[in-house]
């Protein structure tokens, strides 16, 4: 694992953003964002609702185009005019809303846009590859020939992640990968993220769950109101993280924590 104190490690710099801004009309969703991701590193992107995490991921996936700023991918400056350009470079994305076609089956969804043998679809090879991918993720999918509409939330997440791995990407973007999952499935997805990192891929993961973030992230990048608001390492205290996310040491989360602390101390005093 990379040394947590060494943010700019010696491994290859996969992605480097400088001064990325994105405006939607009068609203600036992102302002001057800088972000580095190295190979074999999990970077967690955290922030409150509306901090611009999802917008940043959509910029990287080619869904939105930045209003200004530069994106460098593996040392070269690139533009991402559409999702297929990002895919071609090796940036795979698992969106929060998963972006699956409910009327198609699992195999069709995994290979969507990347079908083998376009003029005479090679269903057998695609099905084998789909099972291989799903088994690598130790996924529990009952049948790959049922429409995705019949799958549960966790199963859909697995399908979406399996799909992102299909093209051997260099960088994977995960938007809230554990939001819809149960306890065991969350652990599996976190395992999976570590496995992906150990294969030497860069991983950018958005999450609201601090436990998940600490469990897998090598670096935690905090966004607040569309701006960079500090870089932390998994050993940072919860209070530091929360105050960076909410923007002040005096906020509802810390007030609540302080109140409970005071109560506990009072209880200890009266006990003896």
């Amino acid at each position: 694992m990379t040394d947590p104190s060494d943010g700019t490690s010696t491994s290859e710099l996969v992605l480097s953003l400088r001064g990325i801004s994105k405006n939607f009309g009068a609203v600036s969703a992102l302002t001057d964002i800088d972000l580095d991701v190295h190979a074999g590193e999990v970077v967690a992107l955290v922030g409150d609702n509306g901090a611009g995490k999802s917008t940043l991921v959509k910029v990287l996936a080619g869904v939105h185009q930045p209003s200004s700023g530069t994106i460098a991918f593996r040392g070269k400056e690139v533009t991402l005019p559409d999702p297929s350009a990002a895919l071609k470079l090796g940036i795979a994305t698992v969106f929060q809303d998963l972006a699956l076609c409910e009327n198609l089956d699992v195999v069709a969804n995994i290979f969507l846009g990347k079908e083998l043998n376009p003029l005479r679809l090679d269903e057998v090879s695609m099905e084998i590859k789909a099972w291989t991918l799903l088994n690598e993720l130790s996924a529990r999918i009952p049948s790959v020939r049922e429409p995705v509409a019949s799958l549960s939330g966790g199963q859909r997440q697995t399908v979406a992640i399996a799909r992102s791995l299909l093209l051997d990407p260099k960088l994977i973007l995960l938007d809230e990968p554990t939001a819809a999952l149960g306890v065991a499935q969350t652990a599996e997805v976190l395992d999976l993220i570590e496995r992906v990192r150990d294969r030497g891929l860069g991983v950018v993961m958005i999450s609201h769950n601090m436990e998940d973030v600490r469990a897998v992230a090598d670096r935690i990048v905090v966004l607040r109101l569309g701006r960079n608001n500090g870089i932390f390492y998994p050993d940072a205290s919860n209070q530091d993280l929360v105050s960076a996310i909410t923007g002040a040491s005096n906020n509802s989360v810390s007030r609540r924590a302080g109140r409970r602390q005071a109560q506990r101390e009072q209880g200890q005093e009266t006990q003896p």
Partner: protein
Amino acid sequence: MTKDIENGAPAVPLLDRSDERVKHAAGFGGAIRSFLDRVQSGDLGSLPVIVGLVIIWTVFQSLNPIFLSSNNLVNLLFDCSTVGVIALGIVCILMVGEIDLSVGSVSGFASAMVGVLWVNQGWPVWLAILAALAVGAAIGSLYAMLFNRFGMPSFVSTLAGLLAILGLQLYILGSTGSINLPYGSPVVNFGQTLVMPHAIAYALAAIAGIVTFITGFRTAARRKEAGLSSQSLGSLLLRAILITVVLELIVFYLNQDRGIPWMFGLFVGLVVTMNYLLTRTKWGRSMNAVGGNREAARRAGINVRLTYTSAFVMCSVLAAAGGILAASRLASASQQAGTGDVNLNAIAAAVIGGTSLFGGRGSAYSALLGIIVIQSIASGLTLLDLSSSLRYMITGAVLAIAVIVDSLARRSRVSHGRA
């Protein structure tokens, strides 16, 4: 059959059968059970239209015994082919969740073009046909451009097209208003009299069964080799034999009269080709994906605009082709061609056949089945000497029932997790 499976059971579970929570149908009884399951949960396929067809045929046959005679059925097939080809285009456009209301006008305009260019201007007939098809493609690309560039709903752009192209048709036909195509020319013969030699019809029916078996067998062999579950040889054979026997019986019955029209052969050929394109090619997958979830398709890297364009162009070209076939069937290009109920019959055929109006769900065969239903109603009522007023009302009622069945089945699919 079950014994065969037990003997061949590999020590390691098949790749796609390792999850014990899923029921898998085995053998012949299992196939029937899973079919009933599917129907119950609203995955009806072409079942409603086949049931409807049986009802319609029973009613008309009991009212007029000529209805199911070979002679009448051959006429029915001639009449099916023209609007059927247009309905095939409608299937394409409905797949991506859009609509084309101008197919009638486009077909009328195409027939007028062939009449004017071939008969009046003296062009070679193949060039006139090619020109008409090219104009169809141009009209489709225009709709696609309006849709992709300006976000114009296809409902509105094609409604405008309906009027504008009808105007063009009247304009190029000029004051005479009608052009007769020469009797005895190959084009008119094709639309009115040409039928397959009986031997060829039998052979084609047999080939259909053989091809079904061979492709099924190859797939099963490859799946077995790869450690996936595969269909047993017995059920493959049964299916192929069933298809062959049914087709041969149909051919035999129609051969009692003139036989199978070449025009109908062309229509079925187009349907089979379209079915292959929609189910077995990347293009077809894109069409399904765009109809099912446009944004998901875009994010998967599919060129959504190109997919829409291909759907619009395919629809208009097939509409033009249908118009040319109609001209050869009627031996004339007139102001009435493509007006009246052509438009709605084509759309109704696709929907009655089971293609969903909501996009992402349909099959090329729905054009074939749907148009046979509509044409059966028309033919039956004509035989009973009833006016077209009744025909419109009954076709309208059938269309309404088809859409209701579609909506109900869709709701049931959602609640059974099969949407």
